[in-house]
Each structure stands twice: as C-alpha cells, then as structure tokens.
C-alpha cells in the first residue's frame, strides 16, 4: 500500500500511509486508539474506498479495492466483531458464497457430504476438533475465531488480517491461536496482526509498523527492539507499571462495601463474601466461566440471586434490578460493549447522559425531563476526562474506533457518579497509553473514597492496579492476595490448583 489517505467527514483517519506485507511473516500494526489501524485494513478488504493512494498486490496496482477484488486477490480479514453466521453449520460457514453443488436430476443442490469432507480437512489444520455439521452458535468465541481462520484458509487467502483477535481470548486460547499463526507462516501466508497487548506482539511478531493519529511513525524488526521502545514509539513517553500507594494500610480504613454469602440458583456463584475498604481497589481473577461476571451481574441486579446481603457504608441495600442498584449508588461497566454497553442509535452525548437521567428520575425511572444543556456538559466532562477521540459529542458511537467506543462506555458509567463502581474487563481494546490513564483514574476514584471493583482476565492489569486480588474458582472465592504477595504464578496456581486437590 502506498501513500494511502483516507478522510472521513471531520477527520483524516489516514494521512499518506505506506505499508507492505511479505509472504511468511507476521506484520504487527500498532498505534493508539483511533490511530487508523482498522481503517487501513478496511481499505485492504474493500470496506472503505481510499481518498487517494494506491494498493499494489503482486505487482498489480489498484486505486481502490471492492470486497470482491479483495477476496479474488487472496485477502481475508478477521474483524474483532466476528462475522460468522451463527445459524449455519461450521462447514457451511467455511464455504459460504461458493458452496459446492451437485446435480440431482434437473436440480442443483448443495453437496453437504462434499462440504463436510473438505471442512474436516481444513479444521484439522487450525486444530478445531469439531464436527463440521455443528451449528456455529454452539461454539465459544475462540472456536468461532478458529472457524474464521479456517474460512480464510478455505478461500486460499495469501494475506490474513486479524484485527485485535486476542481481545476476548484467555491466555491458553491465545497460545493455541499463536500455534495456528506459526503454522500459517510456515505455509507462506502473510499475516497482519493488530493488538494492544505488547507482550503478545513481542512473542508473535516479525516486524511492527506504528501509526499515530493517522500518520506513519516507523517500521521496525521486532528482534531489534524492546517493549519499552514500542511504548515510546507509540505514546511518546514511558508509562508507569504500578498504581498502588506504597505502605497504604487500608485495613484500618472503614469498610465501604460488603457482600455476604451471595449465591445464585444456577450455582454459578456459591456463598461468596468479601469486603472493600475505603481507598482500596479490589480485583477479581479467575478463569473464564469461574463466576466473576456472574457474581457482578447478581450484585448489580441484572441477573437473579438466590441469597446474600449487600452493604454500602454498613447499610444494607436491596438490588432486585439494575434500576434499584443504580439508585442505591452502584455502577457497572459491563464486559460486552456491543451487547450490554452502548446504544448504536444514540450519539455519544446521549449514551453518556442516559445514566444521570435515569438516576435523577422518579416513578420507576419514567418521570422527568431531559436537559440538553446538562447532557452536553456531562458528555464534555467525560470526553475530556477519558480523552475520547471524536470531533463532536454529537457523533454516532459507531463512527468511533474500537478503543474509543470502549471509552464512551466507561464515560457512560462514570457519568452516573456512583459510590461503588464495578469494572468488568474495563480496558478491552484500549491502547497502552490510555490504559495507564484509566488506571490512574481508578486510583483517583478510590482516593476520593469511591469503591472500585475490577474484574479482569489480564493478570498484569490486576497486578498493577489492585490492592487486593480475589481469586475465583468454580463460583467461589478460593483466596485473597494482597498486592505484595500476589504474583502471576501464585494467582494462576490458585485459580486452577484447587480443582485437582478436591477431586
């Protein structure tokens, strides 16, 4: 790609970017939220038409690509929001658009036995142990991703682009993804890998290109640089690794939030109790499905609990619904921004103002008027506080880059100005620089006397912000670590080891 420029109304997303992909390499694309990474890749896949510049594939030059050109020339993209069709089987997904047919008298019908035969072979190469007839909706996120990769292989792609493929994966799933990527490299495919997780980039990348504000910063061989170099290239400064106060003795501070013997009927949470002191940040670790989000949902009233008591400042509160939880001073940044986070039909300002409006309404949340002035003010506050990149808070959220969408979700919940804030995977898709700003923000909130609870699958994140880490296993808290005793090893051990002891 040479000198590619892309302008959206109000922003120049790409300002003369050149980028090349070689066979058999993993080329990492790195940059802050809104730097233009996804846009660059969408130009390759034919979603966006570049304003100027050219694209050269095997010596052939194009001024722009249509999705069909892109497919014909062997380019496949795996978007962060996966595009597999849930209702179809794995096999059908692999060959969608060019299903093998067979003659049946006068008619042509889809040749299912052929599909399944070929699908089985391809699934083997990506290490997915599933019957091709299985419906895709039964698969986990990482399995769906494997189907996407298999789809790219089935299309005989030369270039496979992965836009933040690891954002929702657990560490063991990331490992198996890397195994597949290494195999693809051996087969001579060119891979573009977008991620905000620097550790992963160092592990899997061959070369890295850094973008900043739509401009080109540089391309380097991974072997020549360190993780800190990457941060400097990207953010322009070094960032802090720890956000805890040294020698802070929160045990002597009053308890501001307490949960006692919380359980759910479905047994996903069993008899959980914990306390949060003033100024303390409490993190929750554990494997996916260990019950952390399920517990938060129950506390927040979004899903039913069967027993348990919740206290804020020593006073018991009842949370039969999110409405009552919000009214009593709880907020919860939910894990999944697309499904439980934003309103795609609302602009940024309306998304951010929904909670303050709900919070100040009466009669079960229906009475009262909206105020445009207050709305604009809340939106500007959060835009500034979280450094949301947009040209106006009247912009639709869907026009923002992935990380900035996540910041809008954070802003939405912070705008509620709640006493206790639950963050469930708060930094999904957020760049390293903004992450550090968000960690500082959490610390500031705690210092101001707010309760901060963090659920995260990224251990480094918990280790650098939390004063205490609770480890979940099969719906129970099995251990609390203070940040001084917590290490990746002993947390991982606690979140898995118990299992073998019990059985």
């Amino acid at each position, binding site marked *: 790609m040479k000198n590619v420029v892309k*302008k959206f109304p109000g922003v120049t997303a790409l300002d003369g970017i050149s980028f090349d992909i070689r066979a058999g390499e993993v080329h990492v694309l790195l940059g802050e939220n809104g730097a233009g990474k996804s846009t660059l890749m969408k130009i390759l896949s034919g979603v966006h038409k570049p*304003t100027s510049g050219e694209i050269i594939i095997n010596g052939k030059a194009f001024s722009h690509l249509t999705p069909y050109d892109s497919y014909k020339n062997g380019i496949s993209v795996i978007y962060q929001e996966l595009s597999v069709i849930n209702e179809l089987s794995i096999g059908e997904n692999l060959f969608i658009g060019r299903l093998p047919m067979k003659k049946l008298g006068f008619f042509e019908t889809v040749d299912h036995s052929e599909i399944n035969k070929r699908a089985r072979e391809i699934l083997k190469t990506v290490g997915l142990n599933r019957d091709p007839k299985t419906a895709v909706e039964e698969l986990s996120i990482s399995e769906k991703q494997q189907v996407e990769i298999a789809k790219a292989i089935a299309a005989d792609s030369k270039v496979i682009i992965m836009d933040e493929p690891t954002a929702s994966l657990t560490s063991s799933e990331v490992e198996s993804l890397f195994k597949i990527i290494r195999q693809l490299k051996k087969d001579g495919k060119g891979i573009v890998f977008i991620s905000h997780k620097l550790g992963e980039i160092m592990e899997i990348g061959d070369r890295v290109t850094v973008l900043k504000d739509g401009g080109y910063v540089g391309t380097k061989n991974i072997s020549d640089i360190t993780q800190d170099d990457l941060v400097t290239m990207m953010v322009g400064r070094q960032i802090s690794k720890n956000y805890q106060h040294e020698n802070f003795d929160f045990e002597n501070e009053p308890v501001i939030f307490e949960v006692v013997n919380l359980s759910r009927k479905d047994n996903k949470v069993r008899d959980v109790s914990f306390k949060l002191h003033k100024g303390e940040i409490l993190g929750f670790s554990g494997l996916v499905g260990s019950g952390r989000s399920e517990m938060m949902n129950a506390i927040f009233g*979004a899903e039913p609990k069967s027993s348990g008591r919740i206290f804020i400042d020593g006073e018991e509160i009842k949370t039969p619904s999110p409405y009552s939880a919000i009214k009593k001073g709880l907020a919860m940044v939910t894990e999944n921004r697309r499904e439980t986070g934003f309103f795609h*039909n*609302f602009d940024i300002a309306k998304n951010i103002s929904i909670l303050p409006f709900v919070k100040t309404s009466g009669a079960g*949340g*229906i*009475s009262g008027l*909206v105020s445009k002035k207050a709305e604009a003010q809340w939106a500007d506050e959060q835009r500034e506080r979280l450094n949301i990149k947009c040209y106006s808070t009247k912009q639709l959220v869907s026009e923002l880059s992935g990380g900035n969408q996540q910041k809008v979700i954070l802003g939405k919940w912070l705008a509620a100005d709640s006493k206790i804030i639950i963050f469930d995977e708060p930094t999904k898709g957020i760049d390293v620089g903004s992450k550090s700003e968000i960690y500082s923000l959490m610390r500031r909130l705690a210092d101001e006397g707010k309760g901060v609870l963090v659920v995260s699958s990224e251990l480094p994140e918990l280790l650098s912000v939390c004063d205490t880490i609770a480890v979940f296993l099969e719906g129970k808290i099995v251990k609390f670590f203070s940040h001084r005793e917590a290490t990746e090893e002993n947390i991982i051990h606690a979140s898995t080891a118990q299992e073998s002891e019990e059985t």
Partner: protein
Amino acid sequence: MPTKMKERELTFSQAWQRYGTLGILVLLLVILAILRPSFFFKTSTITQILSQSSVNILIALGEFFAILIAGIDLSVGSVVALSGMFMAKLMVSGTSPIAAVLLGVFMGALLGFINGILVNSTGLHPFIITLGTQAIFRGVTLIISDSSAVFGFPASFSRFMAQRIFYVPVAAIIAIAAALILAFLTRQTKLGRNIYALGGNRESAWYSGINIKLHTLIVFVISGICAGIAGVVLLGRVGSAEPAAATGFETYAIAAAIIGGTSFFGGKGKIFGVVMGGLIIGVINFGMNLLSVSSTLQQVVMGALIIGSVTLDRFVAGRK
C-alpha cells in the same frame, strides 16, 4: 477537492433525512395541482385532505411507538372500532358526550394495557400478541353491537366535531395537538429517551436501569390511547359506529410510520416524520379520488406507492 465533495454529500443526505418526506409531500401536491388545478386551489381541498388524514395520523402516532421499541401493534384498527362502538353505545343510551368520549379513550387505553400485559407476561413478539388481540377486539365489537351499526348521536357531539377553526377542522386540530404532545414526549422527557434506548438495544437498556416491562406497557397504552382518540374522530366524521370500522387501518398506520422514516429495527424515527407519512398517504388517497381512480385500482396504487417511496427514501439516504 475531495474533501469539499464529501462535506456537501453529507449535508445533502442529512437534509434528506430531515426534510425528505416533506419533499415527497410537496412533490405529490405539485403533481395534483398540475393535474387538477381547478380543484386544487380551493381551501375546501386542504380542509378535506386534513380531515381525511387525521384518523390515520392519530393511529400512526401510536403505531410509531410500538415500532420504535422494535415491536408492532396490529390491533389498532380493532381498537378504533371497539372504543368507537363503546362510545357510541354510551351516547345513544344517554351518557353525556364528554363522558362518553373520555370513557371511549379510556377504553382504548385499557385495550392497549391488555396488549402490553400480554406481551410482558408471555414474552412473545408483539406481532403475535396483537395479531391475536386484533381478532379478539374485533369479535368483541361484533358481540356488543350485535353486528349492526349504531347511530343517532346527540347533536352537540356531531356539531362540535364538524366545526372548523380558521378553516382547520376539529379532527385535524386533535391530530396536531396529539402530535405536539407526543413530539414533546419523545424529545424532552426521560420517558421518551428511555423508549428510544429500549428500541436501540434492550440489553443495554436493562443494564442502564431502564425498566423494560414498564416501558413496553406504556408504549402499548400510548398506542391504545391514540387509537381510542382516532375512534372519536372517526365517529364524528362518519356519524355512526360500524362494527367493521377501521378494518385494515393498521396497514396505513404502519405505512405512515415507515414512510416517515421510522426504522423497523427499532430506536429510530421522529413524530414529525410520522405526521408527514400520514399526510402523504392522505394526499395519495385524496388525489386518486379526485382523478376518479377506481377503488380497486386505488389499493394497487397505494401499495406500490408505499414500496416506492420507502425505497426512494432508503436509496437517497443510504447513498454514500
């Protein structure tokens, strides 16, 4: 310059979204004025279009809310008939017109309430629930009327409904007032904001503290009230309550909302658009009568125009 062009295109598509339906309406009126200038330039024409559109606009205003939460209300035609019949029965049996009208509108609200309760308690899609209540409400209308028309309302009622204030018929004033109140509700109240939120994303709405069932219930009550008011207006215009009144009116109401830019997927649309949509249908109806198109052919033309105008709208608005 490429940037310049982009900006102009953007404003054009924005302008279309805002005023496109108004454009279609003006276009239709111009066509009509060219084809039948003698008729067109009479105040009675405007009056007639307004009073004919009022019933449809009123029903469409309620339908709009049902579609806004990604649902639908197929029972509106039957609600118009049943609340109208109820009102008529009250009036002929001596109840004062004011009390009868209020009770009739209340009946509309009650029928909407039943829809809402059924949707909430069964969890079924409103399409199924209101398809069922459409039949039930119509059946009840037939039962209470003994399948025959009711007429002979007090003169005060008929006189009031036939009035004009500065050439504007009372029916139109009622529709405009309803539209203004509902526009206020959608734009200025938290209730309105919450309904848009619910239509945009149910899950997000629930997590944001919006009571899904309460808002669903309110939406169907609004739809019922609007249909109840439409029942009053229809009674005034026709002068009798027919058991088969307003049959098929849900189609026109849905069409008015959709032509007016309401999204079937929920969360998008404006009251102004719905009023425009209702007027467009009114003008098409009036125009075809004026051009003496046979009533059978009118159906075909109407259907084609609905598809045509929505396609045109999507085509222009969706152009990048």
